[in-house]
């Protein structure tokens, strides 16, 4: 914040050097010009954001106040119904069930991602170079795999009849997994989605944290261990404070990502198996809006969802700003 008025400060500082009213005008012009430059520079971005984000958002909000189903789509004219869509959504227990389910799902996914990610990053630091390169390569490969392809591979691996997972578990003598159904219950369906998401999210978290760990001063670590600190103590008092901002960003981003998950949940559970018992927010909006061709109601759910994500983001941005100030 403190850096933005800099050009003006410079202009003001230059003023006392000039004498006489006649020389003031060009200076004022220059002052106006230099004040406008930053705005001109951000203008393209603002216009682009307004066009690609602002306009759809405006349409979304107006849509949420209209009855807009298939007949209206064909007539290309919605009917204003005020808060009817919101009333209907908020009065629908499916919405609340889905919201609670999505929050629990997000909490579990984020916790697993962050804990496993941190452990793997700490492991990465302690590994010998060849093993570290191997592990890093594996992580990058997992990260670069397109989601839809990954889902398909998971579907094959966990297939009821011919899946390699059932075969391997049975062959290794873990138990009788012949024709084990990994998608038998709502819990197991969502657990499979969780596994897939955590697997997909880990590379980014591990590599970011690993980069952060390289910022921990080695001499501090050495000094701490010479002073007789246990490894837990070293982690808590030396490593953790350095990692804190990165952990914070990653957790916040993961919450936002996992809250809005659609692709993995819809494809892994499958179009023929998603139902009110296993909806996550993304799937729910898709079925209500598109499956039922009730675009107005779908828009209302999206607006509510957007507000929830915005709340999460405000929290995150405030924390970030505060951290920057204290730094």
């Amino acid at each position, binding site marked *: 914040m403190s850096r933005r008025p800099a050009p003006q400060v410079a202009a003001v500082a230059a003023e006392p050097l000039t004498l006489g009213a006649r020389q003031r005008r060009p200076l004022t012009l220059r002052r106006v010009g230099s004040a406008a430059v930053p705005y001109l520079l951000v203008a393209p971005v603002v216009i682009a954001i307004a066009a690609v984000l602002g306009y759809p958002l405006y349409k979304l909000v107006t849509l949420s106040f209209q009855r807009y189903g*298939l007949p209206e*789509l064909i007539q*290309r004219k919605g009917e204003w119904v005020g808060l009817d869509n919101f009333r209907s959504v908020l009065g629908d227990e499916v919405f609340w069930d889905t919201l609670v389910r999505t929050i629990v799902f997000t909490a579990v996914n984020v916790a697993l991602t962050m804990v496993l990610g941190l452990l793997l990053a700490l492991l990465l630091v302690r590994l010998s170079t060849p093993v570290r390169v191997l592990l890093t390569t594996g992580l990058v490969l997992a990260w670069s795999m397109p989601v839809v392809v990954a889902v398909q591979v998971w579907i094959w691996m966990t297939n009821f*009849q011919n899946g390699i997972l059932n075969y391997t578990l049975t062959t290794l003598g873990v138990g009788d997994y012949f024709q084990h*159904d990994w998608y038998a219950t709502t819990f197991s369906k969502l657990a499979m989605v969780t596994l897939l998401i955590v697997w997909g999210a880990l590379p980014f978290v591990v590599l970011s944290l690993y980069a952060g760990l390289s910022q921990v001063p080695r001499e501090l670590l050495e000094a701490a261990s010479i002073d007789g600190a246990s490894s837990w103590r070293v982690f808590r008092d030396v490593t953790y404070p350095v990692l804190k901002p990165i952990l914070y960003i990653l957790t916040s981003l993961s919450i936002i990502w996992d809250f809005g998950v659609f692709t993995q949940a819809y494809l892994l559970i499958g179009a023929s198996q998603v*139902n009110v018992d296993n909806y996550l927010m993304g799937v729910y909006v898709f079925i209500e809006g598109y499956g039922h061709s009730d675009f107005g109601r779908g828009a209302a759910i999206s607006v509510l969802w957007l507000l929830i994500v915005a709340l999460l983001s405000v929290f995150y941005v405030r924390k970030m700003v505060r951290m920057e100030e204290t730094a």
Partner: protein
Amino acid sequence: MRARIIGGLALVAAALAAIAATASGGAAATNSITVWLQVDAQAANWEPIVKAANAAFQREHPGVAVNVQYQTWGNHLQKFDATLAGGNAPDVIEMGNTEMTKYMAAGAFQDITSDRGSFANSSTWLDGLAAAGRYGGKLYGVPYYAGSRVVTYRTDLFKKANIKVPTSLAEFTAAARKLGRQQGDRAFSPVYIAGTDWYFAMSFVYDNGGTIARQISGKWKGTLASPKAIAGLTAYRNFFLAASRASKTTDETKPNPYDVYAQGNAGSMVGPGWFSCCVGDKYKPLTAQFVMPSRIKGQPMPGFLGGSLLAVPIGANKSLGADWIKAYTSNQSMTSLRSIGNIPNTTSLLGNSVFERAARKSWFVPTAKNWVNVENGNILRNMLAQILTGKLSVRQAAQSASDNISSVLNAS
């Protein structure tokens, strides 16, 4: 993981883009028409029939090009919605019979009642198909062809176990048990049925005199919790548990039943007649079909009659669209369609093949405008999974599904 948050929003944005794109009007140029057929009609033995219809159409309308675009069942409705919003819908569209009602109710098609007499065989159209093309006493869809469901079975295994083609459900169940004992393989299904194959499960409901839903003085009511429907669902559960080793929670595409059959893991399977296409070279000569028997000896079990209709969307060129439909549903065209194994749209051409016998006794989904929402909300599949896995009793699962169906069908 990347675009996850935006995923949902992007969908909405896409919807908006579709809605916003209210560009140029729909009046198609008269020098060409666009026809949407499903990819099935792109098969090597099917496409010539389409071409012949195009030629017949062009003899009457010289200089009008026919632009046939092939669609897939999975996403043709979403594409159709977008074209309706954009005002550039095709001139003719093929619709599944279960998809028609919602679109007719929304006013997506042009009324072709006055042309009815000029379509070939319109007085002998198959009842099940013709019903799907009518709404509010008006005609919006012309029957195209139907597909019945039969049992495809391994003649060698039946012979080895000394089983004759069953004539009742009880006989079939006993035969399945015998086959299972004979094979003694845990992966082998005497009758492969995907647990949540609701088309097959509902046949048991109708066989017992039950229904899915009924319209009572303008309001829909789910009827799966009635004693007759519960008897049907119980019969389905018992038959499944005796005959199938398929997953209790999967659908009939993961895996495809004919893939299981081609691997040698099924003594028979239930599904559309064309399943016999894909059983593999090894079993092709050892494969035959019969009509699913009813609980009443000597009767067929009512089967789901799938099928397609042809309609002229709003904004399309009605006279050219209707004329193309006339050419494609002509007696000659129907005779050709029948010759490649489809059920023609008219009883006058119906023969005595196993598919055609199966088509004689059929049931159809409730003709409610919201029926599609019951399908894509997976209410019936969820109920079947609950029943087969034992999570809920038949009565509990049926009651909950039935209540759901009532509320979905009556939603505005």
